């Protein structure tokens, strides 16, 4: 790690710790920022590094959220009765029950998401290019529809999550630190992963899958593992997000294909796919822009989002990182971390 990149990493870490203490009112927004970065990072494993553009990664987010909720509630109560009452019966979780349920819930969410990714990858990775994108989109839409019509988990009415035992301020800080920790772990893991033989294999699949297979790579195994890695992190963050919002339901919170699901793609493309820092820059820029302008657009937000995607894809496909690499290639060489713009958006909060 060079000196500059060390300074950059430390600056981000410090601002990540200091920001919620300086602006206690915005902690939820900061937590969302970390979640958005995680979304973009995990999408880029497939979309950028492996060349498989998934439109349905949100599936693992929602799945993890539901598994976590079911674990948290099911350990102490009957889930069917709990959801049938729609929060009308007052159920209390002791501190110990809450934390134990949350911890186990997150573990199960991660494991179950990995299992789903493994099963789905058997089904969907036979598809290539646009078929894969459409197939994953279909899988995410189907998951939302099926969850919505499954009464055991509350159907379209959703589930009220167990209430955090501490004060509201402590609650947001608690989930903020978990989101930050998870995103940092994910970043470090991917950073290491992309330098290993595994990362090379992913790039080989992106460049030419048939040749990679002919060279003796078990492409299916690599594809399955790459998707499982995405699913692992997305499942955990799904469980966290469900607890952060306090209420989950299938269409808008758990499987929001047209919001979070498409944000992942938009953020990564904006920042530049296939790079380590591109998704991070894209996510920070997108989230800050979105939060600042969203309320002034008077209902036209999603039109603007769609236009952003079109303009991004049609006119600015390389993204910010790609553009910078084209403009100052000598500054990058092989080390992408030294991106001069990398720290700027982070400090801008």
């Amino acid at each position: 790690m060079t000196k500059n990149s060390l300074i950059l990493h430390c600056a981000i870490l410090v601002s990540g710790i200091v920001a919620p203490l300086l602006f206690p009112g915005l902690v939820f927004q900061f937590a969302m920022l970390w979640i958005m970065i995680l979304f973009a990072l995990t999408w880029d494993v497939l979309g950028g590094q492996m060349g498989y553009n998934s439109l349905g990664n949100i599936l693992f987010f929602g799945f993890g959220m539901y598994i976590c909720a079911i674990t948290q509630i099911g350990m102490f109560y009957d889930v069917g009765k709990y959801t049938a009452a729609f929060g009308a019966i007052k159920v209390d979780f002791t501190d110990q029950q809450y934390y134990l349920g949350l911890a186990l819930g997150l573990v199960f969410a991660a494991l179950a998401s990995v299992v789903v990714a493994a099963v789905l990858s058997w089904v969907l990775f036979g598809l290539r290019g646009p078929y894969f994108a459409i197939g994953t989109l279909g899988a995410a839409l189907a998951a939302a529809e099926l969850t919505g019509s499954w009464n055991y988990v509350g159907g379209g009415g959703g589930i009220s999550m167990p209430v955090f035992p501490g004060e509201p301020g402590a609650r947001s800080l608690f989930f903020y630190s978990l989101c930050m920790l998870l995103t940092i772990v994910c970043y470090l893991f991917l950073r290491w992963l992309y330098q290993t033989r595994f990362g090379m294999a992913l790039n080989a699949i992106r460049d030419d899958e048939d040749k990679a297979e002919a060279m003796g790579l078990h492409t299916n195994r690599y594809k399955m593992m790459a998707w499982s890695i995405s699913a692992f992190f997305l499942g955990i963050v799904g469980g966290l997000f469900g607890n952060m919002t306090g209420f989950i339901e299938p269409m808008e919170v758990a499987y929001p294909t047209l919001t979070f699901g498409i944000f992942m793609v938009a953020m990564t493309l904006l920042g530049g796919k296939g790079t380590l820092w591109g998704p991070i820059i894209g996510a920070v820029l997108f989230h800050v822009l979105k939060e600042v302008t969203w309320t002034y657009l008077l209902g036209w937000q999603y039109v603007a989002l769609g236009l952003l995607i079109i303009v991004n894809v049609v006119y600015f496909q390389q993204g910010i990182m790609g553009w910078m690499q084209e403009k100052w290639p000598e500054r990058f060489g092989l080390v992408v971390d030294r991106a001069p713009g990398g720290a700027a958006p982070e400090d801008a909060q």
Partner: protein
Amino acid sequence: MLDNFQILVAAPVFNVQLLLNGVLVGAVFALAAYGLALVWGVTNVKNLAQGDFVMLGGYLGYELAKHGIHPLVTVIPVAVLMYAFGWIVYKLVISRVIQRELFTSLLATFGLAIVMQQSMNLIFGPEVRTAESGFNTRELFDGLVTVTDIRMISFVLCGVLALVLVLFMKRSRMGQAIRATAQDARAARVMGVDTERVYAFTFSLNAAICGVAGVLISMIWVLQPFYGIAYSVRAFVIVTAAGLGNLPGVIVMALGLGAIEQYSGFVLGAQFQQATVVGLLVLVLVWRRLLLQRHRQALQ
């Protein structure tokens, strides 16, 4: 769920009702799927905004019908308007993504779908609407099976339109140019076909076809800004299962899909109708994968 199934076995006449409804609605699916296959085959752009074109056509017809025009007559102005809309979209977006990698065009049309459905939501409102065509309802089998006249008319209209399109593709100069471009764009260019014009025409024609389908949908079923994605998925299911350039296959699949939806809606409950369409998409893709796998094993 089982009760509903037993009704079907005990009273076979309900099967007639479901099949009839499915086939009559399926004809409209066939139009949208044919448009998708046309654009897919010629320009290699997979239009994820297909269903939103259908909805836009329906809303245009609905708005025109407010001014005293019979909804059925609005088919003609809507087709013209949608043709113009398709041309604008082609010039602004599609023409720039045709030569790029496939995911680019897919994502661009996905963005287009978001823009269209959200704009329609803001302009026309989120309510579910139906255009009143004012035709009678017929009763068959002593009133056990009902069928509205407008569904019959729309079915016939779909058939006529399909026939006209087939004749157009076979006979007209432009139709020949389109088929030549679909076979080999480069060779067509060498032979003096203006492929850029062919692409623009094909995409606009697709928009016009979708517009007609939308007007029919507005009369025989419902319009809602966010229902577009279901039509896109249906069109993909049909085209993926039938294969490109297989018009009889598209028609059979579309009518079959209509019937399957009606059956699943009846047996499993209405809330599963949407899930069935999406589930079928995944199934069709898996089936394709299994076919490909066999193909791959044959190579080994």
